[in-house]
């Protein structure tokens, strides 16, 4: 689908970006291009924004397609809609990291692309939960300023706009633009006073756009350079974060300190779209220890903290999801103890993914690294020699 991909446009004239997109979704339903749209919306008129499956145009005005709220990785929710056929076609509106998460889940047979059309957006980034609360408060009093915030994220995505800085995971995101979507929504470098352009990336996306009979659009001229700037900026931010977190967790002692605030609530696991086990080993009694065992540990180290197995839990999660972590940062957003989990997990998983030459979500045909093997590989890690890579 490269080269002469079909591009359509939406006119934003006299409307906010979100109003334009809402009208687009209404059109999708009215022209029956899909039976329902999955898009973030304000729930019960509160400030909380969650993915909603909307099948009636009347409910579209609650939706917040673009905004800094990121309560749930929607990719994981799409798996709930597609783990087996529903007989319905759904247009799903996803951030880039949500697409990646969804694609990874399809590889685990926990989701399917068959009945969905993925609409991927150039991502404005997300705020931490605390910052979002502040943002929502301000939005009530000054909706125009917030529209400006979103627009600014696209025209000149500096890290801080009007006092709001995106979450760390977003600052270091390696691809805040859609990869592997059916339709890409091109917002970077767009003249948002005039149009939003939609590009078909797959035949399915092209059929979808054709059905809607939208006006012809074009690629924003400056999108590429804006993307390049973001790429460079985020890569630098990642380098800095990586160095900082390695310094902060460079030994087991430091790692232990990093996790001291962990209360084993498992929120990070529950929100993680890459944590794929149907039943987590930490929910089973595999690591339910005997009471005398705690006394033995206390005897061995002089003391033992409870809850136990906090570092163990996080290291196990690192090993389990290292190859598929999509870097969405939900773990940090969900941590009640404010541990910057995503900093560590993103840093570790990029290292793991580089070792396997794997980029999660990039290509449906790339198998999960731990689901396959080759006969001749990684010879350097076998044996007692020192020739192995560190």
């Amino acid at each position, binding site marked *: 689908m490269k080269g002469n991909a079909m591009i359509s446009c939406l006119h934003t004239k006299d409307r906010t970006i979100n109003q334009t997109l809402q009208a687009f979704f209404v059109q999708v339903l009215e022209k029956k291009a899909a039976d329902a749209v999955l898009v973030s919306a304000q729930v019960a008129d509160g400030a909380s924004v969650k993915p909603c499956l909307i099948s009636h145009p009347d409910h579209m005005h609650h939706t917040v397609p673009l905004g800094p709220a990121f309560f749930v990785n929607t990719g994981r929710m799409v798996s709930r809609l597609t783990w087996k056929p529903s007989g319905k076609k759904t247009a799903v509106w996803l951030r880039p990291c949500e697409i990646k998460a969804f694609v990874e889940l399809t590889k685990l047979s926990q989701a399917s692309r068959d009945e969905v059309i993925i609409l991927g957006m150039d991502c404005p980034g997300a705020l931490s939960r605390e910052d979002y609360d502040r943002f929502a408060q301000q939005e009530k009093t000054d909706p125009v300023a917030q529209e400006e915030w979103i627009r600014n994220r696209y025209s000149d995505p500096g890290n801080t706009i009007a006092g709001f800085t995106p979450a760390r995971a977003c600052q270091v995101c390696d691809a805040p633009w859609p990869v592997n979507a059916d339709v890409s929504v091109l917002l970077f470098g767009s003249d948002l006073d005039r149009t939003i352009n939609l590009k078909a990336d797959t035949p399915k996306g092209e059929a979808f756009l054709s059905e809607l009979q939208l006006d012809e659009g074009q690629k924003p001229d400056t999108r590429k350079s804006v993307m390049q700037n973001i790429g460079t900026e985020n890569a630098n931010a990642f380098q800095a974060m990586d160095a900082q977190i390695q310094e902060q967790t460079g030994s087991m002692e430091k790692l232990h300190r990093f996790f001291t605030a962990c209360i084993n609530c498992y929120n990070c696991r529950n929100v993680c779209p890459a944590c794929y086990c149907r039943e987590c080993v930490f929910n089973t009694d*595999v690591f339910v220890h005997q009471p005398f065992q705690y006394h033995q540990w206390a005897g061995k180290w002089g003391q033992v903290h409870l809850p136990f197995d906090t570092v163990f839990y996080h*290291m196990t999660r690192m090993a389990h999801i290292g190859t598929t972590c999509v870097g969405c940062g939900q773990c940090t957003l969900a941590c009640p103890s404010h541990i910057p989990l995503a900093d560590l997990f993103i840093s570790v998983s990029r290292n793991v993914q580089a070792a396997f030459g794997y980029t999660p979500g990039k290509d449906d045909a790339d198998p999960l690294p731990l689901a396959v093997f080759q006969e001749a590989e990684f010879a350097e890690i076998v044996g007692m020699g020192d020739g192995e890579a560190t």
Partner: protein
Amino acid sequence: MQNDVMSSDVMRNEALGNDVSDNQATGNEGTGSRVTGKNSTQRAAPDVFEPVLIAFVCNWCTYTAADLAGTSRLVYPDNVRLVRVMCTGMVDTQYVIKAFLEGADAVLVSGCHPGDCHYLNGNYKARRRIKLLKQILPRFGIATQRLRLTWIGASDGIQFARTMTEFAAEIKKMGPCQTRLQQVM
């Protein structure tokens, strides 16, 4: 301090030594400070570091090799605690991590040679998991030499004893793993 690695539910598994009487004699204490060798009854000075090595060995190859080493009366250091698994392909990363966190100084995963796996390809899967762990553990100060993967076939009793001796000597030289000295759980 040195003996509790074996005590967790996960790690509780028979330790196969080359002389059973020694294992019984030492019971639950002092295994870490015992001088190695078949006839060793004397104890080393308490401040001499004796590493604890956990070896996950597959039933069909490396465990059989250990058995062969035993019946051949080959000597290898009793620092090594064998955990018999049906296949290295079932050694989940969490068991290796748990072993380190409970104070193991090193972990070995050892199975059949490529192509010899009783379950066709479990050892290839193990190799990917070890690769994965080697990308993670060194970032937290667990040196990559503390985690080894070897292929030791059922008839390689001599190689088994030699590998264990080499491994124990190397780790002894490196000194204790940080997790052994203080609680990191």
